[in-house]
């Protein structure tokens, strides 16, 4: 009798938001080996950035790498090119940029939590979180004018200033969301069925977090203090109240809690920024064409995002290299899957918050 069975998850599967294929070799629903394919959405964005678009347009092109962390991609690119062009931005611009980054983190984390709940068969929670997420989407829409592709950041500054009504809306919604997140923390920690589904499931150990180069909430849930916000001085995170959130066990339960607590920290940062916002220009004028190379790291909602830019003094860049969080974490994910039950696989996968558009680009 054949002992192992192969269960495909993807490239089209109900529990996936984006195309990726995992082939699980299972013994009686226990996963023994995993094979993966991630390149279903390769769109050649890196090539387009160097051949089709000028450096001033590239910021808007890289936003299309991923819908969820669009703002982070543009920001990382912009910071890189500003480094090459030697543009110094003022405090107001920096604050507005962090504000949008953190709002983006809130809505991305909420989406991940909702998706994890949905994949563990908890449709009611999915609907609730998606409903709550509208609060932060409304703030983003009010500030940037768009719901998904914000196109808020541009070289030298930001495209729109924040109005008093926006500020008021943001304060109201953030306060409301803060309460809802407290409520969610209660729901995630006290539900019998989610405890069965999340506790000690899909755990990544502290050592493996380092060995497999884990990033973002995946690493922090395992207790590894890995966060670009703490390792980079490019944006003034420490001034606005950033705090590292760490978990202990590295299982789905801890990942959820780390995300929820990070949302609370992000809300606090946004509130601090809004109350400390000064008057000032939102766009710094600059001249010249970029020449040189830059390395930029930024903490996207899912983990570290890295941009390498090489410019040769023309309007077209010579090389744009995008490295996204999910990209380097696939081997770590595969390791976590081994030994788990297939029944847990969708929830584990959702708790990684994988982004295939980012990975394949």
């Amino acid at each position: 009798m054949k002992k192992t069975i192969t269960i495909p998850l993807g490239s089209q599967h109900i529990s996936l938001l984006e195309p990726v294929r995992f082939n699980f070799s299972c013994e009686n629903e226990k996963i023994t080996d995993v094979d993966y394919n991630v390149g279903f959405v390769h769109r050649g964005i890196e090539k387009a950035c160097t051949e089709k678009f000028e450096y001033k347009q590239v910021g808007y092109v890289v936003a299309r790498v991923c819908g969820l962390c669009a703002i982070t991609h543009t920001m990382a690119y912009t910071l890189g090119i500003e480094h090459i062009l030697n543009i110094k931005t003022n405090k107001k611009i920096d604050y507005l940029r962090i504000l949008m980054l953190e709002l983006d983190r809130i809505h991305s984390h909420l989406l991940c939590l909702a998706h994890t709940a949905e994949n563990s068969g908890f449709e009611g929670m999915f609907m609730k979180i998606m409903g709550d997420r509208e609060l932060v989407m409304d703030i983003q829409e009010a500030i940037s004018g768009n719901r998904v592709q914000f196109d808020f950041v541009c070289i030298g500054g930001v495209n729109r200033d924040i109005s008093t009504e926006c500020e008021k809306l943001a304060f109201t919604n953030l306060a409301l969301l803060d309460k809802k997140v407290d409520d969610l923390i209660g729901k995630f920690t006290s539900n019998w069925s989610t405890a069965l589904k999340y506790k000690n499931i899909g755990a990544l150990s502290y050592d493996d977090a380092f060995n497999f180069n884990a990033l973002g909430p995946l690493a922090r849930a395992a207790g590894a203090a890995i966060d670009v916000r703490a390792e980079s001085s490019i944006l003034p995170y420490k001034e606005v109240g950033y705090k590292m959130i760490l978990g202990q066990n590295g299982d789905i339960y801890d990942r959820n809690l780390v995300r929820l607590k990070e949302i609370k920290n992000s809300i606090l940062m946004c509130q601090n920024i809004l109350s400390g916002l000064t008057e000032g220009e939102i766009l710094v004028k600059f001249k010249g064409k970029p020449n040189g190379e830059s390395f930029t790291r930024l903490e996207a909602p899912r983990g570290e995002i890295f941009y390498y830019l090489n410019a040769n003094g023309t309007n077209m860049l010579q090389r744009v290299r995008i490295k996204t969080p999910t990209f380097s974490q696939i081997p770590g994910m595969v390791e976590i899957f081994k030994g788990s039950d297939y029944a847990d696989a969708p929830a584990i996968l959702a708790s990684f918050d994988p982004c295939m558009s980012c990975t394949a680009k």
Partner: protein
Amino acid sequence: MSIVFSFMLGFFAPIYGGIFYGIDRVLKAKMQRRKGPPVLQPFYDMLKLFSKTKFIVNAPHTIWMIFYFLSLWAVVFMIFFGGNLLYIIFGHLLATVFFIISGYSVNSIFSQLGSNRKLLSVVAYEPILIVNAICIYLVFGTFEISEILAAPNNFNSLVFTFLSLLFVVPTVLKLSPFDASKAHQEIVGGIEVEFGGVFYELVYAAKFLEMIFVYSFIFILASNDYIFGTFLVVFSFFAVALVDNSTARIKIDSLLKALYMYGFGLGIVSIFWILLCCI
């Protein structure tokens, strides 16, 4: 009940079952702060499914499923004609076995995993049904539904039977937390995954019949007090929808443990309770 009325109830079961299912969906949507589909959505789905290409994977797959649907319908007829409770339980078991065989007959991993899990969930809930049938016999002295429905109300003795049955309802209807055999996000609906068009409509309509099957168990607990029986059904309908909305899906081994520990445990408690009540 006249024979004609019983026949009508049985014959139109897939129709009003569909309306119950529509109400169920609206109720769940309201609990999730959504508007939800129209109550008649199951019938719009039916029209849509009828218009699709009649495609089958292989003949046995479809034939076993048709057996499943027909035998389930026959079980519903038996209920309305006031048949024997044990025959009804075993008739339902037979129908489910047809469905499981149907799932095994295709070379689809999701369908086969669905059959595996369905088989395990049957192993989990079937003893509870039997124990509860015994409880009902202990109270009323008969397995015939027509006689039970004519007997005076003795719900006090059957409280634990009712609680025990509340564990069976979501398992049979494949609702959270006991929906591992369907597991939408894991095995894409399990056995249901390989059906399409009009044949899927039969699987879909079978869900309505399953609803009638489990809720009639709850209804007969109130014996001749039909209003109280309706109340029990509405209460459990609401409770099951609430639990479905507020829990995640548990794994099949946790399902087995939970059902044996609480469902079966309550069934055993119920027997002692009934014996105590008799004294």
